[in-house]
């Protein structure tokens, strides 16, 4: 650096370059710390939130809390029905939105021709991703609760899952398309040049490479769905459920009324008694553990597919 400064000075009068290293390095340093500060702010806020919740909720966590139904007495109340409801809903959301979202993404990216119609669909899928979730709740109320009542059983697990699946479908579709677009075109050409049909090319070469990215997108989508409260309240998920959906009859099971963890937490937070607020904190911890478990599963799946490719 010193050398360069000297060089700049000795040729200073004749050179048309003003190297000026010290100022440039100063700006470098300023920006390094500015971006570092941004990271610190983000992390600190998150840590404060987590610690606060943990301090309030951890002592309340117990087997009794996990295995009890809601109750009017805070010390007897548990979130079994909400936990089971969340698990049911999330499994169904994954089952509905993965095949439909991935299918739509594959069609739009690999099969559809570039017409004004497909472009219109593309723009609107991106718009759909930004629609407030309460709107999806209203849609679910009309379509799944009212029109499709014979199928869904009204305010049921299936209705909730279908509504949430619609809500996160754009995320899955967009992630699928982006992953497919990232697969080099030379692979498609290689497949076609060997006399493969489009489906054979997609099935054998493009989709396996895109799958890790698609799974990441699906995780993001499910993470969003698991925390949604508004659309489920709109379609009329109950807050007080003191029974579990029957496991021996899945059809009857998915048609049962339900509640989910965010609704249970919301319900407890809005009670006046402080003990219920403690329950809410514990509920938040459970919700986060479920979310982390789900993400971990998806990360493991993704790594497994990545190794194969």
């Amino acid at each position, binding site marked *: 650096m010193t050398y360069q400064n000297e060089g700049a000075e000795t040729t200073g009068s004749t050179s048309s370059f003003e190297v000026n290293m010290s100022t440039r390095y100063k700006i470098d340093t300023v920006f390094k710390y500015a971006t570092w500060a941004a990271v610190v702010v983000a992390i600190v806020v998150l840590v404060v939130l987590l610690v606060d919740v943990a301090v309030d909720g951890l002592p309340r966590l117990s087997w009794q809390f996990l295995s009890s139904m809601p109750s009017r007495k805070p010390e007897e109340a548990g979130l079994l029905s909400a936990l089971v409801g969340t698990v049911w809903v999330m499994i169904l959301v994954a089952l509905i939105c993965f095949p439909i979202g991935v299918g739509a993404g594959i069609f739009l990216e690999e099969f559809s021709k570039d017409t004004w119609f497909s472009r219109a669909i593309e723009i609107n899928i991106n718009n759909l991703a930004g629609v407030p979730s309460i709107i999806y709740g209203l849609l679910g109320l009309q379509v799944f609760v009212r029109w499709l009542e014979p199928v869904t059983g009204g305010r049921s697990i299936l209705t909730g899952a279908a509504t949430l699946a619609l809500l996160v479908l754009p995320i899955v579709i967009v992630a699928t398309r982006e992953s497919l677009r990232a697969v080099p075109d030379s692979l498609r050409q*290689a497949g*076609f*040049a*060997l*006399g*493969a049909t489009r489906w054979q090319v997609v099935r*054998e070469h493009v989709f396996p490479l895109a799958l890790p990215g698609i799974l990441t997108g699906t995780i993001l989508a499910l993470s969003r769905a698991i925390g949604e409260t508004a659309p489920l309240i709109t379609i009329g998920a109950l807050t007080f459920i003191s029974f579990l959906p029957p496991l021996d009859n899945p059809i009857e099971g998915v048609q049962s009324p339900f509640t989910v963890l965010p609704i249970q937490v919301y319900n407890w937070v809005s009670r006046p008694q402080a003990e219920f607020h403690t329950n809410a904190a514990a509920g938040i911890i459970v919700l986060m553990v479920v979310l982390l478990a789900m993400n971990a599963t998806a990360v493991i799946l993704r790594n497994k597919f990545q190794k194969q*490719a």
Partner: protein
Amino acid sequence: MVAQTTDNATDQAALRAKNVSVYYGSSLAVRDVSLDIPKNQVVAFIGPSGCGKSTILRCFNRMNDLIPAARVDGEITFHGRNLYDRAVDPVQLRRRIGMVFQKPNPFPKSIYENIAFGARINGYKGNMDELVEQSLLKAAIWDEVKDKLKESGLALSGGQQQRLCIARAIAIAPEIILMDEPCSALDPISTLRIEELIHELKQQYTIVIVTHNMQQASRVSDMTAFYNAEATETGNKIGYLVEYDRTQKIFKEPAEQATQDYVSGRFG
């Protein structure tokens, strides 16, 4: 069919292009190309960038179909039938007219699977292990990979990958192999091996090769087609065929001044 010998040049043409023009959208990319590709010979396409040699090559196995805006006029005859006939199925056609690309593009799968894929999707009924071995042998890469057939094709060097791609193309028993600058991403030694391979392959296959390397064209080909491009008022380039003759003639005593200038390195 390969053994059939006749002096009639008509029957010896594996492919016959007649007044072929290619458009991308509304703009003309290559105009009015007519040439015969003789059976069991190597035909080289040379010319400056943007002269349409790759475009014409891609018409031969209808890879241009994959570009939505591309349109082909004129006629390319293969076994007495226009390739662009409604009745011709491009998927079926591409099995009989194989292609090797500029950048080696093996599938990110095992070496074995790279070869077996084409055979499997085309309903190959024979012994797959044998086919894989035969194809790799013909592509002069068997000795290097026979102990690691289960390893990824991407673990090979660039030159080996390109020979793997040639083996993959051979595996489905094509009649014609189209090569689009197959050596442009390779070092000189790998290039030499591919050129030797092309010499062997022409016993069995008809080969059309696009190349930027004029020494390569003179070394490997029997016939050479020189393309050039002219700029239009709007700045687009339109390619056209300048001269097509025996390679020796193109390089020693071409009929056109433009060809002379190009092969002697005076322009382009």
